[in-house]
């Protein structure tokens, strides 16, 4: 570690003392960043003695906490779930790069069929209001130890308009393609049978689902909220659409009377409203468009209530 700058001197002095703890490690990483900033702005302008390696009570009250290791800074780390056989921080299985425009010049490689789309009339100039998004190609491999496959075209060069309109369009597309877990469908609390000629209570839930993702380079959060439920009771009757998910008995807001003995299942089509916000924003904004999911209940049977006259015992 170089200690040429004032703030870094402090970090360097305390480094050997605190470097043994992960918290201190993170603090020191931050200290280096702070030092670079401080060097430009002047540490004393803040009016405080720079004690970059000191901690706040917020972190200082943590005693022997669990540790989570990430590869890189939180801002850039891939924090998504990984398949069980792929460890965090393992070698990448897919990589992409900006496509080398020289590849399209006359020469043997220029005739690779897969690249015709990228090489044919490539976009090279954009209006002032737009920026050029270069063509990209990608390659993959089966495991971290196997050889890379050949580069394949991924996307052509195009002019894009930076700004919110672009982002909103991308959000709309992302929401339409968002994988939503279908709503649950429960019939008579899942006991597997019901009676004919009486109300059979059916319900789902209205739990929203969220997705944190990156859209066009911007970290956004998407929220899908169910707003409409279409119930097909599976007995040939006309499906019913409700604006509530129903609930367990005694809630009868969604119920159906089966009239025949048999085995049925209920098919639910849920309409989801989308909302989104840029990471850090408090307010949600509506997504123009909807998403839908379909789910089916467990099969259940219908039974008849038979009354018997019983002779009282004497």
């Amino acid at each position, binding site marked *: 570690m170089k200690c040429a700058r004032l703030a870094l001197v*402090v970090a360097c002095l305390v480094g050997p003392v605190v470097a043994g703890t*992960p*918290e201190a*490690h*993170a*603090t020191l*990483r*931050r200290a280096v960043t*702070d030092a670079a900033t401080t060097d430009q702005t002047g540490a*004393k*302008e*803040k*009016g*405080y*003695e*720079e*004690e*970059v390696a*000191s*901690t*706040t*009570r*917020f*972190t*200082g*009250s*943590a*005693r022997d*906490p*669990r*540790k*989570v*290791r*990430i*590869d*890189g*800074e*939180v*801002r850039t780390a891939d*924090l*998504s*779930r*990984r398949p069980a056989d792929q460890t*965090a*921080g393992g070698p990448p299985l897919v990589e992409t790069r900006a496509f080398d425009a020289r590849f399209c010049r006359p020469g043997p490689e220029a005739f690779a069929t897969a690249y015709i789309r990228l090489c044919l009339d490539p976009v090279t100039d954009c209006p002032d209001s737009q920026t050029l998004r270069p063509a990209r190609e990608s390659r993959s491999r089966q495991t971290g130890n196997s050889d890379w496959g050949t580069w394949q075209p991924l996307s052509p060069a195009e002019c894009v308009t930076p700004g919110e309109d672009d982002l909103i369009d991308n959000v709309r597309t992302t929401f339409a393609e968002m994988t939503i877990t279908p709503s649950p469908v429960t019939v008579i609390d899942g006991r597997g049978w019901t009676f004919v000629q009486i109300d059979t209570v059916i319900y789902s839930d209205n*739990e*929203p*689902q*969220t997705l*944190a993702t990156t859209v066009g380079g911007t*970290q956004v959060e998407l*929220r899908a909220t169910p707003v409409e439920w279409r119930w097909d009771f599976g007995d040939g009757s006309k499906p019913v659409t409700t604006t509530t998910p129903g609930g367990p008995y005694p809630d009868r807001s969604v119920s159906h009377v089966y009239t025949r003995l048999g085995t049925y299942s209920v098919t639910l089509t849920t309409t989801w409203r989308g909302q989104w916000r840029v*990471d*850090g924003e408090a307010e949600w904004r509506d997504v123009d468009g909807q998403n839908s999911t379909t789910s089916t209940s467990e099969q259940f049977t219908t039974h008849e209530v038979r009354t018997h006259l019983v002779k009282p015992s004497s």
Partner: protein
Amino acid sequence: MAAATASATASATPTATAIEAITTPPPVPADLTTPGKVGSKAAVKYFVALYGYTLNTGDTSLIRAASTETCTYCRSLASDIEEEFESGARTTGDAATVTLIRPHEGESTVDSHLWLLELAFAPNETIAADGSLDGRHGAREATVGLVAAWDEGRWRVAEYVDVVDSGSGAR
């Protein structure tokens, strides 16, 4: 927590602006009872927002309510602050704000989400019981992890997690 070191005080600028005490608790988010990540994220951000208020007022009731009974870190944080007040010392400032919050899907379950946060802390100063300046710190940042868990009908903070960059040590 130990007071700030006393090195190089002569170079400190005497024109430091006064640090105002935080006396108003943050509003309770409506999403604390919202299922899913919307609710758990709100709980974590609320907890962070409560930190400055708690540190400045010694009122630990809200931060205790915003955390689970089993959160040893949360209990320690609250008791540390209570001890400071009992000693007669007072801290002003140190409000924490979230500059980045991301879910760590790899260590989250349906009813427990790990959120990784980059926090910015406002300047603070601590006055000892005898009225002397015990410590003064400039703005700082920290990267931490907080786990929010569904607990008794709402989301609460359940654990503090150290965030360690696994790559920097090997590089």
